[in-house]
């Protein structure tokens, strides 16, 4: 238990620090890197403290309190980090599925109503701009083409499609 409490405690400390950081900075951009730094520091602290406790408790009989779950607790911490980041990222992005469900909360809607929720200008164009900004695609004389980076992603998607046998997503 001590290892679980230690890892979860440090994780929540990192999250709290990150939330406070975001409130203080008040910038209109995601503060992802700062959380990664905090999480790495937290992981070092966890393993440092856990190894010390491990040496101290070696001679003691195993009970619920000192169950030797050093690695499981460490992995729990490591997996919780990207989960928090995914939810944090979600504060900025609203997927089409979330838009549909939000529209349907507490009311019925026709197909046409749902269709009017998103337009090409709202969903395709910003994503094209995002892909241009991240240098996955380039625009030449009004037409779009993949860059080397975009081509590599496309190749990976093709391989994944062969592996899974799934039709194209989107």
């Amino acid at each position, binding site marked *: 238990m001590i290892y679980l409490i230690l890892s979860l405690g440090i994780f929540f400390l990192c999250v709290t620090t990150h*939330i406070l950081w975001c*409130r203080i900075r008040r910038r209109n951009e995601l503060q992802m890197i700062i959380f990664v730094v905090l999480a790495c520091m937290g992981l070092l602290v966890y393993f440092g403290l856990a190894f010390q406790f491990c040496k101290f408790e070696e001679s003691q009989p195993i009970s619920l309190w000192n169950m030797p779950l050093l690695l499981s607790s460490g992995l*729990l911490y490591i997996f919780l980090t990207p989960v928090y980041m995914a939810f944090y990222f979600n504060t900025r992005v609203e997927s089409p599925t979330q838009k549909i469900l939000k529209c349907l909360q507490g009311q019925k809607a026709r197909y046409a109503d*749902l269709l009017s929720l998103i337009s090409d200008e709202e969903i395709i164009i910003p994503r094209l701009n995002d892909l241009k900004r991240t240098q996955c*695609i380039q625009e030449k004389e009004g037409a779009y083409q993949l860059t080397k980076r975009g081509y590599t992603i496309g190749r990976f998607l093709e391989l994944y499609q062969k592996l899974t046998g799934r039709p194209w*997503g989107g």
Partner: protein
Amino acid sequence: MLSIDDFLILANSLGCFFLFAFLQLVIFRFLGTKEVLKMLMILIIGAGFLNILISLINFYSRSLEIVFVVSLSSLVLYGLMAFLYIICIFGPYESSVRLRIIRELYKVYPSSITLAELLKEYNSQKIIDRRLQRLTFSNDITWDGIFYQISRKKNFFLISDKIAACLKILTKT
């Protein structure tokens, strides 16, 4: 440093995760877009039950509180692995608009396409249609022939939306 309890928890959660991923790869070859969400839930819950069962078998001779902590740790680890696989690999492949745009451009590479050509292949109507199909088949929403309506008050998307909303307030983003 790796104790036997630790090893059993890790082996159990990793084993169940790989079983889930393997079954997902095999079974999903034969599924259409609309069956995806429902089958995903069945696989996650099925492998989760197996995870609990294996924990109970491995630790049956130990005290009740130890069995509880160990089963819960193993289940949470498995759940996090499955969740990360879905949000980082499976989900983006299945529903990311950006990745679909890349696929459309990859299809014609090294030549290029105009916005009008791209929108002919992939547009907001197709995006809405695919999501409505998936949500209807997984019973998250229902369609009576005219109207769509939420049938389940709690589903993954709504819960995730609520967590994100809380986080938005907390971080003042």
